[in-house]
């Protein structure tokens, strides 16, 4: 076997989430009344367009989640030795982007470095000029050919992308009634086609300080963002659900205790709490290097802990919401009917109250997602976020911030992180809006 699959902690959690999502979708499909709001979401073209963007991000994130280690040629007593580097399917897919590192900064689509260097020319003289890049535009004979070559490649790529888009539309036209979504598919396919074709030989978004391709970094950051956004909910959900429902249903001293807990928690400045927790964890990790066989698993554990800590501080909002809703529900007559049958409290909570607050949970989760992605960026910028070796929007921004001050300015790393994050969060927000509207019983539903 030439490779060994690796399942990091965060991978396992992502798969767990996927499985949970699959089970939920399956159970919703079988129940007409639960399916109804989702059908309303499916009718909304904004929602479907943003879902399309989200699923592109999701696919990249999932590909990036399937990790493995390659076997090295040498053997140790007949046992295969694996490389200490943990790769993912996504890395393999965009291998050129990963491997093609330049010396240092280069601007988007550039064929030379961003700064002049002293070079020895053919005659042996020392000249100061912009050296050619090792990979970016290396196929060009002359620097001046670049513009026409980029244009040609972009148009060719766009055409190929548009063709694929048209094919997709032909296949999907029956199932997707909205014109807007079809047009959107075409646009996205064209853009991706152009980008892929150009990125094959250029650094589409430039390179960073150590010469890594910024497009590659941005794409790798997606997984980190998605994990922060979704795995955190694994922590918040049980806490918020249990405490919220219990406080609302039991009232009395249970309610008091839970309310005190979340009031106290939400009055501690969360950045402070997170910083303290992350630093403590960092010390623990540093003193126990024997726990980790690769640096990736070390960075990953820190990411999982960050999710945990973020989750511990962010369940209070949902909890408060659920408590209020449960206070309302517990007075409803079907709860009283269950009480008069002597149904146990736990059963009332799980059979009667939980299914009836699920729509709130869902809306809150989708809305929280974008907030968490942004929170990661802020925390990593402050320096208490993910491991510095882990690629994320936050570390990208943190790395780029000092270069903003230099002249000429290095703007592309920041702009790329900004653009990708904006698209991701905007899509998530638009989708959350559509979901909230579809589940809102107060909006009139005259279309039905």
């Amino acid at each position, binding site marked *: 076997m030439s490779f060994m699959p690796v399942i990091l902690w965060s991978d396992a959690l992502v798969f767990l989430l996927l499985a949970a999502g699959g089970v939920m979708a399956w159970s919703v499909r079988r129940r007409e009344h639960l399916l109804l709001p989702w059908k309303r979401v499916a009718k909304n073209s904004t929602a479907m367009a943003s879902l399309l963007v989200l699923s592109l991000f999701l696919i990249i994130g999932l590909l990036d989640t399937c990790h493995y280690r390659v076997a090295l040629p040498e053997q140790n007593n007949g046992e295969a030795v694996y490389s200490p580097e943990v790769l993912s399917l996504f890395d393999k897919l965009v291998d050129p982007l990963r491997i093609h590192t330049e010396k240092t900064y280069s601007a988007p689509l550039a064929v030379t470095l961003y700064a002049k260097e002293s070079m020895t020319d053919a005659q042996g003289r020392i000249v100061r000029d912009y050296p050619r890049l090792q990979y970016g535009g290396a196929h060009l004979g002359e620097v001046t050919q670049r513009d026409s070559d980029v244009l040609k490649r972009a148009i060719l790529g766009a055409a190929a992308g548009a063709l694929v888009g048209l094919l997709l539309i032909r296949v999907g036209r029956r199932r997707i009634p909205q014109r807007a979504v079809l047009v959107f598919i075409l646009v996205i396919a064209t853009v991706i086609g152009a980008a892929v074709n150009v990125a094959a030989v250029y650094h589409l978004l430039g390179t960073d300080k150590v010469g890594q391709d910024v497009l590659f970094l941005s794409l790798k950051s997606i997984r980190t963002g998605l994990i922060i956004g979704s795995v955190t909910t694994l922590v918040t959900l049980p806490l918020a659900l249990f405490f919220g429902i219990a406080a609302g249903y039991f009232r009395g001293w249970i309610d008091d205790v839970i309310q005190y807990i979340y009031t106290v928690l939400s009055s501690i400045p969360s950045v402070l709490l997170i910083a303290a927790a992350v630093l403590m964890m960092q010390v623990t990790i540093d003193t126990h290097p024997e726990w980790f066989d690769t640096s990736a698993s070390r960075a990953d554990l820190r990411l999982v802990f960050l999710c945990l800590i973020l989750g511990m501080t962010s369940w209070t909002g949902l909890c408060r919401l659920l408590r209020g809703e449960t206070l309302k529900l517990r007075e409803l007559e079907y709860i009283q009917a269950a009480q008069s049958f002597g*149904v146990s409290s736990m059963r009332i909570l799980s059979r009667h109250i939980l299914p009836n607050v699920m729509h709130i949970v869902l809306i809150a989760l989708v809305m929280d997602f974008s907030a968490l992605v942004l929170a990661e960026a802020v925390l990593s910028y402050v320096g208490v976020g993910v491991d510095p070796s882990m690629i994320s929007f936050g570390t990208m921004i943190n790395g780029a911030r000092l270069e903003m001050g230099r002249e000429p300015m290095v703007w592309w790393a920041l702009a790329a992180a900004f653009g990708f994050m904006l698209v991701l969060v905007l899509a998530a927000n638009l989708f959350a809006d559509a979901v909230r509207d579809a589940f809102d019983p107060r909006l009139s539903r005259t*279309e039905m």
Partner: protein
Amino acid sequence: MPMLKVENLITTLRSGVAIVDGLSFDIAAGETFALLGESGCGKSITALSLLRLLPDGVANAGGSVQLDGVELSAMSEREMRAVRGGSMAMIFQEPGLSLNPVMTVGQQIAEVLELHCSDRDSPLLANEQRTIELLEQVGIPDPARRVREYPFQLSGGMKQRVMIAMALAGQPKLLIADEPTTALDVTIQAQVLELLRDTQQQSGMAMLLITHDLGVVAQTAHRVGVMYAGQIVEQASREQLFTQPLHPYTQKLFAALPEMRRRGETLAAIPGSVPPLGSVAQGCRFASRCDRVWEQCRVQSPQWIALADGRGVRCHLYQDRGARIGEPGARGEEGAFPVGEREGADEGCSIHVPRSMLLEVADLKVHFPIRKGLLQRVAGQVKAVDGVSLAIPRGRTLALVGESGCGKTTLGKALLQLVAPTAGSVRLAGGELVGLNARALRAQRSAMQMVFQDPYASLNPKMRVAEILEEGMSALNIGGDGAARQVHIDELLEKVGLDRAAKWRYPHEFSGGQRQRIAIARALAVSPQLLICDEPTSALDVSVQAQILNLLKMLQQELQLSYLFITHNLGVVEYLAHEVCVMYLGRIVERGTSEAVLRAPKHPYTQALLSAVPRIDGAGVARIRLEGELPSPANPPQGCHFAPRCAQVNDQCRRVYPEERVISAEHAVNCHLYSKSDGCG
């Protein structure tokens, strides 16, 4: 010249389905026109169409509305704004929701005044004066003080009066009242209806009264239009309609009313429910529920047939110009059953053979502490139920009657131990329930179950019918294994008149009446001996109410169930109950057989309550005006609780709470007017 003239009004959904389909009527100045119909027939949408305040997705699709000769549908939105609240005003159903809670009563009335009749010279002062006048006009005591109060400081009846004052502020030519008294108690309802009648007489405005209550129509309306599925099916003056209803639907509505003289009979319920919008493409919309249906009804939509003196009816039976009026089926035929033959026998056995008591309640108290201050010290007690004793024999129905807030529902829950009683005893079939722990109580749960008021809130929307029905059995561990329970569920559904296929469906697929059947089936699933029915029909339409009452009656005969029937609908009490307890402020003030209590009420409160119920025959029980409203149970009056509102009050009433006086073997009352000497007749 009519004040309001509506011709061929059509209001549709965006999909083109008509909610209001070709409505024509007119109202003269000083006249009250009532739109009578069940829920979902388009009454409220009609009112909103007149004001052009339709909700999103509903649009006016044709017809003309003329107010005092001016066409409204041609007006611009700006002109329309002057009409709303000005020459046309509306009163809504729920007074608690139609006043803005953060504005004082005076500000809200002044807002209308500023918009529609501001006095240019000294607007502010004049408005204040006028506001006070208006509040005085609608009978609010001490208006100068009330002007500065907020809605939460007013009771329900007062809020509805304020709403009326706001409507009157613009000096409207037409007042639209959309179920103005549905959310109010009978005694308050009587006050509000009287106020509406008086104001109309003074100002000579036209009034459009929207209601589902035949009693309200009988008391208030001059002419009546009966609506069914978006159409007016019959239009007549009140006298004509109540002496001889023509349309089979109207006839059925009258026949479905529970009354004393229908005791022992099955009510003439209308089968099924109102068809969903747009579901009837051809033929008469009532055809599927009509028992006089013939081929033509299913094929051809009946035309409006105008009869003599302004009457009209939409029915194929009257095609040949009313020749069939007076044929069988008209109301005159109803009630021909001798009043009490079957019933007499029924009553007889209760007197001679003492039945064993199923439920005995002695001196039950439920007090809720009022906590105040930092340390949550108990500052007082809300005495929701304050020393109630009652007993229900097997297979009988005891009705608990009283206004909202008198503690009926709390009493019901205390019996089920859903609310812990403060003191007293509840003995079910001889076994004491108060003070049992949860485990011991669970063993007793199956004997006593509850049917709730709102069928829309009493079924979990996320559970299928089979799961709902099985829940009780599995919680109490009865009904055998899974297969046996499924068989039992099938039987239950059949028993309450539902299809077996219903068990795999969710509650939202059923109508209100069907849901209530499911709720009854759920209670029956654990084979109880006593059902506590908390206003089980108050959220249902008259025709569906009759179905449910018939079902309850049938189940009682079949299963020997006892019912504790909590209600404020005295018609239902007359029809169903064997015994009645009248409750006032947490205590029972009068008890006895329903015959005795309802025919010869002794307590002044019972007398007032009975006289406040609008009768459809308009029979002249002199109305006893009840002043004021129910006092707070946190601070009940000294002496007799009813003393502050009682017309026959004396000194003793204000000092001492009256003992129970026995009037006869089956009648007792707590009132000083009946001293021990002249009791025991």
